[in-house]
């Protein structure tokens, strides 16, 4: 059986599955239940000056009957006094010494505030700290969370203040509500971060009730933007993890967060550079015991590939993630319809005809049999037909032999630059 033990910046855990800082990690009772279920670590719900919450805090987005495609919350950080949380952290760590407990922290952007909370929290025996520079709602209106995390200089300065006194590894949790997350990731590294985690939630409004005209959720008829997470945000998170993992100046481990719902998602994040993964929405949807399937699935996957340790897959897809300008313009795939499997629903034809490149023809054989055929020479390999096809195996995307040697946009432009070349000149 593969070794699932993980070490991120010195924080060890029996497996890479951590609960993210959120409602599931609000108390010792919950975290201990999570560890009993099998979670390798937990990032305690953010500690700071105890806040006041509102009633009606969560909302979810369904898609075609599938519940919790996305999840929105307007809950703030812990509403419990620091002493209460620290006592429970101490007790939990004592009961589960081999599991990772990381304290998420958020205070005003003042040196003395960071120094005070870091010293007090570390005394409780945490394995590491996670600085919450990501929560987009409520706390951000007070200059904390995402308001700090969107300004690279504030990220760097506050990380530096924490590192002045921290004795345990410091993870900086980044907000996705920014154009280029590598800017704040690099700032965290410059401030001395031992690791970074991403993504926190995305600014969102889950919906509007078209009968009452209230926002969803609403608090007595009034709403405010929340933070969006769950399966819908996974592609956004995965890209941000990949962008940081391949950035030459961001050379610290990454804890991946964002819509991770099963072991396959976890593997994707690890291949794209995550050393550990953090989960929230899936646990809120299905309970702590989903980690059993995650552990089994990951273990079987590694065994099936003959991989001894989960650490061997970290970052393996990063070299395959590049800039558009480095992609081969002459690589070509085309759609091929398997008429034995095709149910003749014509969705591929409609999609191609209406919204893509008009290369799927409908035909009728002499015996009246109807079918669909791709004109491969006109197919651009966009994948749309196979995406909309409801029948597995009915459409294959087939790699074609190179007619021309590989050539990237960057190579092309370099070649054009060597001859007399004009761009954006009016037509002759």
């Amino acid at each position, binding site marked *: 059986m593969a070794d699932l033990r993980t070490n991120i910046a010195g924080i060890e855990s029996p497996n890479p599955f951590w609960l993210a800082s959120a409602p599931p990690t609000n108390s010792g009772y919950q975290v201990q239940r999570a560890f009993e279920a099998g979670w390798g670590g937990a990032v305690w719900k953010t500690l700071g000056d105890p806040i006041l919450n509102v009633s009606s805090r969560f909302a979810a987005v369904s898609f075609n009957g599938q519940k919790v495609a996305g999840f929105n919350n307007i809950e703030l950080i812990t509403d419990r006094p620091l002493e209460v949380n620290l006592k429970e952290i101490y007790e939990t760590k004592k009961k589960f010494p081999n599991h990772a407990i990381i304290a998420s922290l958020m205070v005003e952007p003042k040196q003395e505030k960071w120094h005070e909370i870091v010293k007090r929290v570390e005394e409780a025996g945490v394995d590491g700290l996670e600085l919450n520079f990501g929560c987009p709602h409520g706390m951000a209106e007070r200059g904390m969370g995402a308001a700090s995390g969107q300004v690279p200089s504030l990220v760097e300065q506050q990380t530096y203040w924490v590192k002045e006194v921290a004795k345990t590894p410091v993870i900086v949790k980044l907000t996705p509500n920014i154009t280029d997350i590598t800017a704040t990731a690099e700032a965290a590294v410059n401030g001395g971060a031992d690791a970074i985690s991403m993504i926190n939630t995305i600014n969102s409004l889950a919906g509007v009730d078209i009968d009452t005209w209230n926002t969803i959720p609403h608090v007595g008829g009034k709403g405010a933007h929340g933070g969006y997470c769950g399966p819908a945000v996974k592609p956004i998170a995965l890209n941000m993890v990949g962008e940081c993992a391949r950035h030459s100046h961001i050379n610290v481990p990454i804890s991946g967060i964002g819509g991770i719902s099963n072991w396959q998602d976890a593997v994707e994040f690890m291949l794209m550079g995550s050393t550990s993964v953090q989960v929230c929405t899936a646990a809120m949807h299905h309970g702590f015991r989903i980690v059993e399937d995650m552990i089994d699935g990951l273990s079987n996957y590694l065994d099936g590939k003959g991989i001894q340790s989960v650490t061997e897959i970290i970052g393996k897809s990063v070299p395959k993630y590049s800039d558009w300008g480095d992609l081969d313009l002459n690589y070509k795939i085309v759609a091929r319809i398997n008429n034995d499997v095709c149910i003749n629903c014509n969705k591929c034809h409609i999609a191609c005809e209406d919204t893509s490149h008009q290369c799927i023809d409908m035909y009728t054989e002499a015996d009246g049999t109807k079918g669909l055929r791709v004109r491969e020479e*006109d197919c651009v390999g966009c994948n749309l037909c196979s995406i909309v096809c409801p029948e597995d195996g009915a459409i294959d995307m087939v790699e074609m032999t190179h007619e021309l040697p590989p050539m990237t946009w960057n190579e092309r432009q370099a070649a*054009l630059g060597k001859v007399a*070349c004009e761009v*954006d000149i009016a*037509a002759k």
Partner: protein
Amino acid sequence: MSEYTQYLQEKDKIDVLLNQGYSIKSITENLSGAFVEFERITGSTITSETLHILTADARKYFSVKLIHQ
């Protein structure tokens, strides 16, 4: 005419010039596509031809030819 057929026609025009000893001298790209100027030097005689390339695949094609010329 399908875009593929149009590409083949443009590719043929490029190949004809290259086979006649022309090489790509300059390229002007703008909103109308690409204007590729070919030049052939025979002794002291310089002749040039310009192709207006419209299709994306033909723009890839002359680029490959340029890289390898």
